[in-house]
């Protein structure tokens, strides 16, 4: 049998000892560059390793996100952790098992094929041999490169993978611990920042005496150029200092935005770089009617429930960092650049934080803490952002305007399709042209501005993510108008462009179905060849009682939507029933997904449900407001998210296909949920609302216009 192909992660980190170790306490430790962000990845990776090694789950540990132990796997993003890190760990564990079995066979003077493994060790002909992995592990050169020579198990032999193993990390988290926020180091100092109000703003004066009076306790003030932090052994004292500080600081060159700067309808007026994908424009427009839909989505926030925090200590020229960022190796590189330290002098370790859903303030807080730590060598510094700081200074998900246009033939089927997207860049992690961490902008003039770079097609696109419908639509092209400079910092938010694009595509599909006099589900199925796509739609429709959908325009509506995330990850369909009087109320959500081999079915359902709620929250409620220096929605009153009284019962089902490769699921229901809501509201009202969020004001405007 041919050896399986090495994953990209393994090619970049070939040494076996970057991935696996057999520890003296007779446990195996596998390492991953992917980190726990509430999605249960550590549990799933542990299941994969335990499966290949035939060890009980409690004999396998996962070290995730440690620059001294584990592999560099960049960031934990794009629903790739099981697909890439999981596949790597499967190969490494299978190879380790093979190497260990060969050593044991030599000792036992038998053929490797004669040996199997159980919880006690190697077994030959049903008898324990008295040897286990740890007896022979010392005889293997773990610094060697992985070859992919191990043969992973057949899925039909799985006993741990495919089980809904409970999450490893939850018992601590329901008992008051488990978060970086909870970590206490000896003699730890607390710190808070005074933020540079906008990039390029210069601190003219700071009334330190007034701030010290307001702190009502001993504080130190760390100032470097336009970066300011307050430090004390007492957290409440620095909190008071930080609370008071903006009133005692004078800045020059502060940005002055207007609320209209946040309006997605203005995006086509901004300078953009165009990227065209897919089929060329037809030289002669195809015959048929043209149907078009235009939708917008405002800037939206990650809005993590816990403010960003980081711990850092600088001693003997070495910097230790604890962070809840999405990638510790990239963080180390970025800290080295910002602090002008050697990468080898920095050790970053991931500790769980509150859910981030993308690139939020986590990395920036790590640089903040490191700056303060270098000013206070020898002491651990814990720097936490304030709530307003989290809302105002995290990078946000870009506003988008999307036009989807189809030419339909006499039967009502599309023969030509164009998706046009206007959007600021979706990923601006430090290291991209002209992009540095937040505090680095305050330390020294930032590097020269570079044109924004969205993720390329092979990484699933940024703005155009899921802009290519899976339906048979004839000639298909996507035109991405990538905004050169947005008014505020934007970066990766769960699903990138998928939510607005799926909202537009699936809205247009409903319009096309109505125009053809067809049922929306039947119309979609008529244009879909992939049986897995068809299956999730059919099952969702059955769960939702689609045949009893009812008439349009009654105030109650049922909508459905479908997408395959990035067109290569999990398939998901979502149906939502709503009632609309003055505002939209969800009565029920159903979702069905196909993620291939389900490593942990309950963990996947948890992700599906969460994606439904978050997608619904973005579609119905959320909008980052701009005013003055930047973001003006800086608390949960001005940035409301979906609450318990607004979340309906949710049914999430999984179509398990154990023989198919595992597909990423973390983001697959977000777009279809928003789109299903859009379609349900259109069904309830008899007319479509094109601008998110679908607020009371927009419902009222739609009713009045009708």
């Amino acid at each position, binding site marked *: 049998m041919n050896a399986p192909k090495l994953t990209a992660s393994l090619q970049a980190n070939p040494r076996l000892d970057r991935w696996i170790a057999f520890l003296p306490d007779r446990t195996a430790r596998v390492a991953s560059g992917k980190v726990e*962000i*509430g*999605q*249960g990845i550590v549990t799933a990776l542990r299941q994969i390793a335990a499966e290949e090694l035939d060890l009980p789950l409690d004999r396998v540990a996962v070290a995730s996100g440690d620059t001294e132990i584990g592999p560099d796997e960049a960031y934990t993003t794009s629903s790739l952790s099981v697909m890439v890190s999981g596949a790597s760990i499967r190969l490494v564990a299978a190879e380790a098992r093979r190497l260990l079995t060969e050593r044991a066979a030599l000792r036992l003077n038998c053929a490797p094929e004669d040996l199997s493994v159980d919880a006690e060790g190697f077994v030959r002909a049903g008898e324990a041999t008295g040897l286990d992995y740890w007896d022979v592990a010392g005889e293997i050169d773990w610094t060697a490169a992985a070859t992919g020579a191990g043969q992973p198990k057949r899925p039909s032999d799985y006993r741990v993978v495919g089980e809904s193993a*409970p*999450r490893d*990390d*939850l*018992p*601590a*988290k*329901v*008992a*008051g*611990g*488990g*978060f970086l*926020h*909870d970590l*206490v180091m000896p003699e730890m100092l607390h710190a808070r920042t005074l933020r540079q109000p906008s990039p390029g703003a210069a601190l003219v004066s700071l009334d330190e005496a007034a701030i010290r009076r307001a702190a*009502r*306790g001993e504080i130190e003030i760390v100032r470097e150029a336009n970066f300011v932090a307050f430090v004390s052994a*007492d*957290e*409440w*004292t620095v*909190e008071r200092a930080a609370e008071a500080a903006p009133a005692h600081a004078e800045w020059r060159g502060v940005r002055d935005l207007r609320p209209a700067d946040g309006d997605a309808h203005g995006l086509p007026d901004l300078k953009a770089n165009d990227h065209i994908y897919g089929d060329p424009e037809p030289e002669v427009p195809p015959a048929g009617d043209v149907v078009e839909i235009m939708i917008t989505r405002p800037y939206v926030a990650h809005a*993590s*429930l*816990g*403010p960003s925090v980081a711990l850092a200590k600088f001693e003997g020229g070495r910097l230790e960092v604890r962070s809840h960022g999405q990638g510790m190796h990239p963080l180390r590189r970025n800290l080295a650049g910002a602090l002008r330290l050697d990468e080898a002098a920095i050790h970053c370790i991931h500790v*769980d*934080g*509150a*859910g981030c*859903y993308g690139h939020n303030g986590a990395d920036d807080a790590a640089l903040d803490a490191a700056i303060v730590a270098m000013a206070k060598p020898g002491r651990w510094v814990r720097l*936490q952002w*304030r*709530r307003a700081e989290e809302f105002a200074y995290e990078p946000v998900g870009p506003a988008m305007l999307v036009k989807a246009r189809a030419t339909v033939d006499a039967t009502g089927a599309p023969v030509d399709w164009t998706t046009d997207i206007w959007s600021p860049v979706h990923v601006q992690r430090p290291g991209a042209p002209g992009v540095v961490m937040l505090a680095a902008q305050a330390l020294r003039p930032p590097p020269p501005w570079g044109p924004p770079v969205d993720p390329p097609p092979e990484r699933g696109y940024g703005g155009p993510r899921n802009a290519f419908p899976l339906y048979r639509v004839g000639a298909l092209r996507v035109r991405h108008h990538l905004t050169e400079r947005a008014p505020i910092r934007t970066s990766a938010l769960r699903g990138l462009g998928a939510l607005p694009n799926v909202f537009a595509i699936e809205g247009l599909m409903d319009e096309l179905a109505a125009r053809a006099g067809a049922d929306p589900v039947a119309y979609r199925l008529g244009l879909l060849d992939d049986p897995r796509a068809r299956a999730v739609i059919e099952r969702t429709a059955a769960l939702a009682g689609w045949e009893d959908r009812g008439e349009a325009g009654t105030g109650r509506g049922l909508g459905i939507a479908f997408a395959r995330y990035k067109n290569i990850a999990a398939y998901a369909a979502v149906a939502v029933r709503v009632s609309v009087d003055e505002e939209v109320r969800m009565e029920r959500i159903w979702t069905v997904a196909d993620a291939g081999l389900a490593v942990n079915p309950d*963990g996947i359902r*948890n992700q599906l*449900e*969460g*994606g*439904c*709620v*978050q997608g619904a*929250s973005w579609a119905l409620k959320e909008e980052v407001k701009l005013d003055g220096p930047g973001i003006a929605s800086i*608390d*949960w*009153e001005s940035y409301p*998210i*979906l*609450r*318990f*009284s607004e*979340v309906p*019962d*949710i049914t*999430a089902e999984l179509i398990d296909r154990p023989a198919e490769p595992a597909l990423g699921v973390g983001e697959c229901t977000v777009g279809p949920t928003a789109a299903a809501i859009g379609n349900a509201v259109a069904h309830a009202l008899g007319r479509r609302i094109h601008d998110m969020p679908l607020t009371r004001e927009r419902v009222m405007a739609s009713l009045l216009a009708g």
Partner: protein
Amino acid sequence: MARLAFELNGKPVAVEAGEDEPLLYVLRNALGATSVRFGCGLEQCGCCAVLVDGAKAFACTQPAAMVEGKSVETVEGMGGEDAPGPIQSAFLAEQAGQCGYCLSGMLIATKALLAETPKPTRPEIRAALDGHLCRCGAHERIVRAVERAAGMRP
């Protein structure tokens, strides 16, 4: 600084607290009750909920001085990682959480709800949890966990 004495999870404690210092910092930093999570400092998210003489209160704004002589309960009093109490066990059984940052507040709100309404309906559960935000979208599971804690699910 002022001396402050109260009962924390059934045991008498005495600490120094700063003037106007919210209960949250006293519980987390002086008394190690890290379940009391900082979320907003504005009583808007519910992460910091505790019980004061059995009634739910938000520790992020409640001045510590207000609990002098009173009884404060936090999640630490419900059970530990190795021996979770019944409400914690119900949340674990339903795998009711993703990142878990909101869960302390959910557990406290559940305890307060079930003390008043031992067999709550779904609307009553949602109303009781409405002041508690969950950003990951674990709502469905959290509602099921409350039902399980109430003995309404097997």
